[in-house]
């Protein structure tokens, strides 16, 4: 087997995590705020009232500040696939590249072209064309999310492809299976609606601050009504697709589900852990307890995973060592088959190079028997198939906990807004003020659940992350890691300072915002 420099893999992983997590601070806001700006402007065009123009321009200014840094942190992600993960790029480029190219062609150009009209076209195009442009920016932003999540969904649940031993890579054989991959569909709806939710919290936070300070009261109240309705709708989508995602993960990534629930021994009528502290000494296969303390809701995990209260949910031990009773093949057994597949592939390549047709055909026949287990052949031990448990476990529970609070918050703000008593509810406003920070925690936690829970795989079950990296000296990635860390931090500080200044300037009462 090829020698793998784990320090390169780990630094490449750290750099990708760094850039993705920074990017993920800004993207959800772009996804949601673009639609909120479109809503505000639609109301302005319909009513012709100047105050709605001021509201639109205020939120649009904040959108623009956030959009720029989202673009800056996004470009690096696309190219990092090549620079840090060149083996991965070659292995999956035939499948992964197409969604990225479509994203660039149809989504980014829509955003880029109409962004200029949205910001500089107020006196250059008609009112209706300007509104159309704002909507196009919103559609473009969300369309880009479709394609990147098609790519990500494929990494979680690889469909619509075959492995080609001639080229030693995965190749697409069904574009529609790729696009309508259940993992991609539920991921897109879950992610975009969580972006809408987050942007609604952003509006709630700033508007609550104005109400607490007694400034721009009418503008803030109007902004809250729109954001609360949007946030409430988005919350219900987040909840629904969260359920669909859990069901999908149970089918396609049972190890991820076991990790996010800290479930080591599989069971029927499995409960879900509502609150719990993990035992950090616990290892797969030992007899220690998984939790130091926990509160469970009976039957719920079985129901979420299988839509049956009594169904069996496999645990980490079942997936690592196998469980004959339930017909589960363990990672240990898959590794043996995977190593055989690697050996046969090598024999095939050598025979092809030596133009030995008979040997090549025999090796290919043997390879095809075990090719589904190819990825497992690169694992050093069965326990390597287990992702880090603590990070996805805590992240999942934080995400779900916060996700349950948000609809209540939106409902309360909407209720009191409609009764026109929101300003008097001084106890509620601080909750609105802190809500965006909680939303940010939930957003980042969601990312940790999806991506840390996918480990050790770059492509679930097929390609481990450690086989995906470029052949680099780790110092190269260390230098660029700190370059990007420093730069992104500087830009984040700049963004926050500019945004705070714009917020302190506030809405232009009765006229245009300067």
């Amino acid at each position, binding site marked *: 087997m090829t020698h793998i420099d784990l320090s390169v893999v780990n630094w490449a992983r750290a750099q990708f995590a760094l850039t993705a997590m920074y990017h993920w601070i800004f993207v959800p806001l772009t996804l949601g705020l673009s639609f909120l700006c479109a809503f505000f402007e639609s109301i302005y065009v319909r009513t012709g009232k100047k105050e709605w123009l001021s509201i639109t321009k205020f939120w649009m200014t904040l959108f*623009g*500040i956030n*959009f*720029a*840094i989202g*673009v*800056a*942190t996004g*470009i690096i992600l696309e*190219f990092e*696939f*090549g*620079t*840090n*993960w*060149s*083996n991965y*790029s*070659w292995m*999956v*480029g*035939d499948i992964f*590249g*197409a969604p*990225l*190219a*479509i994203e*660039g*062609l149809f989504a*980014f*150009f829509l*955003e880029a*072209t109409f*962004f*200029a*009209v949205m910001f*500089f*076209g*107020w*006196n*250059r195009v008609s009112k209706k064309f300007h509104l159309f*442009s704002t909507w196009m920016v919103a559609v473009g932003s969300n369309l880009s999310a479709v394609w990147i999540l098609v790519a990500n969904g494929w990494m979680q649940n690889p469909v619509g492809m075959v492995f080609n031993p001639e*080229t*030693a*890579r995965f*190749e*697409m054989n069904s574009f529609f299976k790729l696009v309508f991959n259940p993992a991609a569909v539920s991921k897109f709806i879950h992610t975009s609606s969580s972006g809408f939710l987050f942007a609604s919290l952003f509006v709630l936070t700033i508007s609550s601050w104005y109400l607490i300070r007694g400034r721009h009261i009418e503008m803030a109240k109007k902004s809250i009504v729109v954001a609360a309705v949007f946030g409430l709708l988005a919350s219900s989508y987040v909840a629904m697709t969260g359920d669909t995602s859990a069901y999908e993960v149970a089918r396609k990534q049972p190890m991820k589900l076991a990790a996010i629930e800290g479930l080591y021994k599989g069971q029927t009528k499995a409960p879900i852990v509502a609150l719990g502290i993990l035992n950090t000494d616990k290892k797969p296969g030992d007899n220690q307890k998984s939790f130091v303390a926990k509160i469970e809701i009976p039957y719920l995990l079985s129901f979420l995973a299988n839509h049956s209260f009594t169904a069996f949910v496999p645990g980490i031990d079942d997936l690592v060592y196998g469980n004959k009773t339930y017909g589960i093949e363990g990672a240990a057994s898959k590794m043996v088959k995977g190593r055989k597949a690697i050996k046969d592939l090598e024999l095939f*390549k050598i025979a092809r190079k030596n133009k030995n047709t008979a040997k090549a055909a025999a090796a290919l026949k043997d390879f095809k028997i075990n090719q589904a287990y190819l990825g497992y052949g690169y694992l050093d031990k069965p326990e390597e198939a287990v992702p880090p448990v603590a990070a996805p476990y805590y992240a999942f529970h934080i995400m779900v906990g916060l996700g349950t609070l948000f609809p209540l918050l939106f409902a309360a703000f909407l209720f009191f807004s409609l009764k026109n008593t929101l300003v008097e509810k001084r106890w509620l406003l601080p909750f609105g003020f802190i809500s965006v920070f909680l939303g940010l925690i939930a957003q980042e936690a969601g990312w940790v659940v999806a991506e840390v829970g996918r480990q050790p795989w770059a492509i679930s079950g097929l390609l481990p992350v450690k086989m995906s990296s*470029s*052949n680099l000296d780790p110092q*190269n990635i260390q230098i660029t890691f700190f370059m*990007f860390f420093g*730069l992104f931090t*500087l830009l984040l500080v*700049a*963004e926050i*300072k*500019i945004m*705070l*200044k714009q917020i302190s300037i506030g809405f232009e009462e009765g006229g245009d915002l300067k």
Partner: protein
Amino acid sequence: MIGNLDYTTLQQLWWIIIAIVGALFVFLIFVQGGQTLLGQVAETEMEKSLIITSLGRKWELTFTTLVLFGGALFAAFPKFYATSFGGAYWVWMLILFSFIIQAVSYEYRSKENNFLGSETYELFLLINGVVGVLLIGAAVGTFYTGSNFTLDMYNRVTWDYVLFGLNLRGLEAAFSLFNLSLALFLLFNARVTGASYLLNSIDFSSNPGLETRLRESVKKNFLISLPFLLYVLFSILLMKGFGVDKAGVVSLVSFKYLFNLFSMPSLLVLLLAGIVLVVLGVFLTSFKTSYKGIWFNGLGTVFVGFVVLCLPALNNTAFYPSKLDLQSSLTIFNASSSMFTLTTMTYVAIGIPFVLAYIVYVWKLMDSKKITVEEIENEESY
């Protein structure tokens, strides 16, 4: 019809599509060229604002075209993506770095409380304009001069150019006079198109001095770019190229690119037309009072860029040659995606004219009125 295209045709078609996107990118880096002119042609804060506002309405198109160029290469020629990006690590990382700092500079430069100060954001724009364009030019140059990599039987790349104990990872491209000349031509041509674009988009009635300096800049930068262009052209005509035979064996072939030009006369015509258009654009701007020079030297730049990208790839040529192991060189045949993927993407590419159409429509709509001092003072600007 698309479903009936054979694999070779699809591979060639996709290289041509990528060359078109690349050529449009070479035109759109007038934004970067314009950024490098800021400190030289703007004498007042208002002049600076006029220039930055004008360029700021187009920077995203350039940026998005670069992203599309990368995405299309990933999709259509993933082996190139994996080999070049994973191998010439520092070239691509520095290009990316220069584009990241550009992305925020327009939006943040004139905003209150911007933390780093306007001058820092202007410096970011200068770095993007100079470093970004030079590195892209040198990277394209390696299509002709080759790179220092080998591939194993699983197509994993090893890059090997060590200087003083350091693996330069692509930065050694700067040691080639050809690469350097192509990079410098690209930079000075971007300054020509940048100045030409600014002349077309700004109302100079309150700033006649800026117009004079921009016209002077077009002439000066064109004259500086000329020796680099001539060196690149003569080198291409005279140098050995990397040919590939029917069995896929790569070898050095004398006058390969000259031969390619004569084998593909449409490229020869485009190259000559491109050069004439660039010169015409410069003439109209520098010696006449025309504001439309950008359309001539812009179109000329697209033509020349297209030829420069097609010449080392079509007609059985290895477009990403390896200097260390000729048989590791990449051709459009061994580096491409599968036939299924290329066919699928060709269906998707039917949408390209629609995308181009709305870009042109919105461009015309936004540029129908020139940017004025009043607009900078009273409306949203950078």
